[in-house]
């Protein structure tokens, strides 16, 4: 254990671990030392001088090594000048004074300087109302400036750092929090300072500007209104906003979030979401979130929202729709096939599964990735916190591009590597995480399983994995389809099981799923199906939260073989166009529920805005249909549904919604009163969620499938293989309706090896036509010299449907002549 030291701050005795900074020690004791540049998640910089305090240390007699005593007390020697509380660590017997006249003068002086060229445009500044500079000026500022107003330094006020973040150079106080965040925490130094003195200003030269998927976080920690998001800029005043707790539904990380809402004239007097902010959960997302989660919420307000049921494409009442669906289901019973996606909540999936089971029908998970049955057995144990991994621990990331698939996991894994954890990144191509890996393994497509199996040999890497104190494996579907990823999952599970890295906290398997609640869907008993066409043939298909027809023309064709199609979704899609009955569902922002994250943490989200039109919650619709069919399904309350779920799904036993809503103190302290310290991230008052236990830690028998020797398709000499990869900003329904992201989504672009490109006569930025699975499409070309010459990387959900590796014909297209 680290040594504990005792010091006195403003007369209060504080005992903290050795190495603690004075500013943090004070915070722990409830004493606020104002800061601008210091941030508890980053290394101190000491460049704003706001945290100046008086520091005294006991005088030590050189000869004896003992403290010199004076009137029975250790003699304290104060430094002649103020010291920065953010760069000084505590020492035994230290005396810190934060309220003396000298300190007050120091703060006044610092603020007077900071404000010499500040534009003081608080009335039109987005930060006004939650601005550390504003708040600390009111509290500690001089009230008057001696500087000449006319000699203010004027700088540019509307600088787009890319299309997502705007910079106001006059408001910047050069604290460098944003630069340090990008450099230290994210590892993408795309912000920097230029020039010196009063001319110092932020620059970003990346292409596109501010090229990082974490950019929004800088606006949370910027202590002034210098960095604002294009989404929220001039959108509302902070004090008009209400806060509703939620969980991000864009990826399996399950970042805790807050929706800020207000009633708005522009929206016809409706309550609308103005911005999404992170909510602290140190074991999940700390105080961060990614830009996809922050900006891609607009789909819930899309003009494509379904607001009324339709029967045979004509508007209908809920009664008529329910009647028809119930009659059809009743008449066909076991011919009913429920196809649902991990976009739905645990409650939705539970009711849908109960419905399918009650009818004797089939329930299929809509995904191209397998392995969820294994995470329930050898997933990470209760109490897992990636933030605790470091020296002596090992993390393997295989067939996953975490930066694109689950950004906050990228961030957390990168930081674990910074703390000394051994990071092994294995993939068939370069990914951003590789830079932080101790071992980067590049395998040939088709060698995924072999690569993992080799980690059980005698190689140095294998030894390091086996001997790790803790080991976590992330597996994904980069370059793989359902089959390949399921087999890879089995190989990873075996590796963990054989090396005894299962059944305890900070050990086990994590699936980097394609949708936020895929893990929950597996828990509820949904399973993927490789051959959807046969599954649909002559069946009554009930599709919930998925757009198979829009995703893949082959699936649209397959759906034509169905006898009757019911589609339940929030947006109009190609699939709803094919439906006999369409049931409008509520967006997750309009209702409550729970999701299960990839780390198997069950977390609650709450309603933030009123329901659109006549939409109903998915669980309620399924519950109502169930009731009409004589099943005892819940149709009213999501929380009652959760209780039923907990009573019948084994791994959820003992859980209830109150447990999910429990909180505990977290460090760093954040919240509205502590804006100056942690930023505008929200304090978690609504629940940290509960991690499910695994079969392994309950001591139950774990039965892992055989790892099949056959592997994913490999490229052959005479043909190219198209393999799917995931892109963060894609054309998926939940992303594309956010206009702000259009540029980052971009055109469908495939990656080719330089040699392949040469052979096809195309260069980067050129066009190719692709023919596969009987389809043909065009795409732009990107060159990637880290991939095999035999493969073409095709992004998922970008209009080129590749669900499994498949052989493809590629032709280079001549550039269109520009006249």
């Amino acid at each position, binding site marked *: 254990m680290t040594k504990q030291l005792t010091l006195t701050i403003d007369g209060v005795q504080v005992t903290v671990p050795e190495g603690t900074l004075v500013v943090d020690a004070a915070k722990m004791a409830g004493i606020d030392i104002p800061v601008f540049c210091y941030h508890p998640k980053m290394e101190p910089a000491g460049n704003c001088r706001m945290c100046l305090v008086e520091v005294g240390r006991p005088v030590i007699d050189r000869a004896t090594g003992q403290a010199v005593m004076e009137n029975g007390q250790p003699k304290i020697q104060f430094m002649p000048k103020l010291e920065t509380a953010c760069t000084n660590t505590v020492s035994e017997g230290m005396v810190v004074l934060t309220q003396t006249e000298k300190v007050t003068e120091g703060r006044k002086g610092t603020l007077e300087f900071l404000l010499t060229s500040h534009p003081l445009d608080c009335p039109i500044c987005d930060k006004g109302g939650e601005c550390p500079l504003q708040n600390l000026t009111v509290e500690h500022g001089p009230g008057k400036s001696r500087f000449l107003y006319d000699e203010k330094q004027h700088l540019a006020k509307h600088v787009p750092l890319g299309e997502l973040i705007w910079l106001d150079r006059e408001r910047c106080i050069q604290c460098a929090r944003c630069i340090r965040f990008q450099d230290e925490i994210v590892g993408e*130094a795309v912000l*920097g300072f*230029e*020039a010196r*003195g009063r001319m110092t200003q932020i*620059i970003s030269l*990346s292409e596109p500007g501010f090229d990082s998927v974490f950019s929004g976080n800088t606006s949370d920690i910027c202590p002034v209104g210098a960095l604002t998001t294009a989404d929220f800029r001039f959108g509302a005043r902070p004090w008009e906003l209400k806060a509703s707790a939620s969980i991000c539904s864009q990826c399996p990380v399950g970042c805790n979030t807050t929706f800020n809402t207000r009633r708005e004239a522009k929206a016809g007097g409706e309550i609308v979401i103005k911005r999404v902010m992170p909510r602290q959960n140190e074991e999940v997302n700390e105080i961060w979130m990614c830009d996809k989660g922050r900006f891609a919420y607009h789909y819930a307000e899309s003009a494509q929202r379904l607001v009324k049921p339709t029967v045979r494409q004509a508007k209908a009442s809920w009664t008529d729709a329910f009647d028809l669906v119930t009659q059809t289901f009743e008449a066909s019973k076991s011919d009913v096939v429920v196809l649902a996606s991990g976009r739905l909540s645990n409650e939705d999936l539970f009711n849908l599964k109960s419905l399918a089971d009650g009818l004797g029908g089939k329930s299929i998970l809509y995904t191209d990735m397998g392995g969820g049955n294994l995470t329930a057995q050898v997933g990470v144990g209760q109490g897992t916190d990636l933030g605790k991994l470091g020296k002596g621990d090992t993390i393997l990331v295989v067939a996953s591009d975490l930066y694109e698939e689950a950004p906050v996991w990228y961030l957390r894994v990168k930081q674990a590597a910074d703390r000394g954890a051994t990071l092994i990144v294995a993939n068939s191509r370069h990914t951003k995480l590789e830079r932080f890996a101790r071992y980067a393994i590049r395998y040939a497509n088709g060698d995924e399983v072999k690569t993992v199996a080799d980690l059980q040999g005698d190689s140095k890497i294998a030894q390091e994995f086996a001997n790790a104190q803790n080991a976590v494996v992330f597996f994904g579907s980069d370059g793989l389809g359902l089959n390949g990823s399921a087999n890879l999952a089995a190989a990873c599970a075996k590796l963990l099981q054989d090396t005894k890295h299962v059944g305890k906290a900070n050990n086990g398997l994590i699936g980097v799923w394609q949708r936020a609640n895929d893990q929950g869907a597996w828990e509820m008993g949904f399973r993927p199906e490789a051959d959807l066409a046969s599954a649909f043939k002559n069946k009554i298909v009930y599709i919930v939260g998925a757009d198979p027809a829009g995703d893949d023309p082959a699936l649209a064709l397959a759906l034509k073989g169905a006898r009757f199609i019911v589609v339940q979704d929030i947006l109009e899609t190609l699939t709803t166009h094919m439906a006999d009955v369409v049931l409008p569902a509520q967006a997750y922002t309009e209702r409550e529920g729970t999701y299960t994250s990839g780390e198997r943490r069950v977390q609650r989200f709450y309603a933030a805005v009123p329901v659109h039109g006549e939409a109903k919650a998915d669980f309620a619709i399924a519950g109502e249909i169930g009731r009409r069919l004589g099943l005892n399904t819940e149709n009213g309350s999501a929380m009652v549904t959760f209780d039923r779920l907990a009573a019948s799904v084994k791994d959820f036993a003992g859980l209830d919604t109150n447990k999910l809503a429990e909180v505990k103190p977290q460090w760093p302290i954040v919240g509205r009163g502590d804006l100056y310290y942690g930023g505008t991230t929200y304090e978690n008052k609504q629940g940290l969620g509960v991690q499910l236990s695994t079969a392994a830690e309950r001591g139950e028998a774990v039965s892992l499938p055989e790892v099949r020797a056959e592997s994913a398709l490999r490229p052959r000499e005479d043909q190219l293989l198209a393999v799917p990869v995931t892109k963060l900003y894609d054309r998926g329904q939940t992303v594309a309706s956010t206009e702000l992201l259009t540029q980052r989504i971009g055109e469908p672009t495939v990656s080719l090896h330089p040699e392949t490109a040469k052979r096809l006569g195309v260069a980067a930025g050129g066009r190719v036509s692709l023919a596969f699975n009987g389809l043909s499409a065009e795409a732009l070309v990107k060159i990637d010299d880290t991939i095999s010459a035999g493969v073409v990387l095709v992004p998922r959900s970008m209009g080129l449907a590749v669900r499994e590796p498949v052989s493809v014909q590629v032709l280079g297209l001549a550039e269109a002549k520009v006249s």
Partner: protein
Amino acid sequence: MSLAQKYPNEVNQIMAKYPPEHKRSAVMPLLYLAQREEGYVTKDALKDIAQMLDITETDVASIVGFYSLYHDHKAGKYRMQVCTDLPCALRGADKFLADLCGNLGIQVGETTADGLITIEAVTCLAACDKAPMFQTQGPDGIKYHENMTVDKTLELIEALKSAGKEVK
């Protein structure tokens, strides 16, 4: 043409001075090399250096932006960099700069019509006690000019002009 193609020997020599894990330290000498010909670091050269050292372009630009000795845009044959920081300002640097500009008929940051002189205002050059002062950067390297007056400066400019002619 990339830097490495243009000055292969020098680039190799510079890179050899730093251990591979600290290669980013080579940024300063590489920047010097990059601006040798044009007098400033072009966008392409910036990219080139970032790639060579495995750092971001923004990082390289920050360094160019910090030092008065690196430039990111073209200027006249000589850059005349007047320090206007606080100590120099107290010794009249502001007025000196304004008068000089007035005499030359240009603004700070601009270049004389003959392309000879660009006037720039910079931060401390470590000659605070000898203000007004400036440094010139030109084909003959960097030179300090201390305790200057406008007249002395105009003389200097004349000298630079004729020096240029002699060379021709």
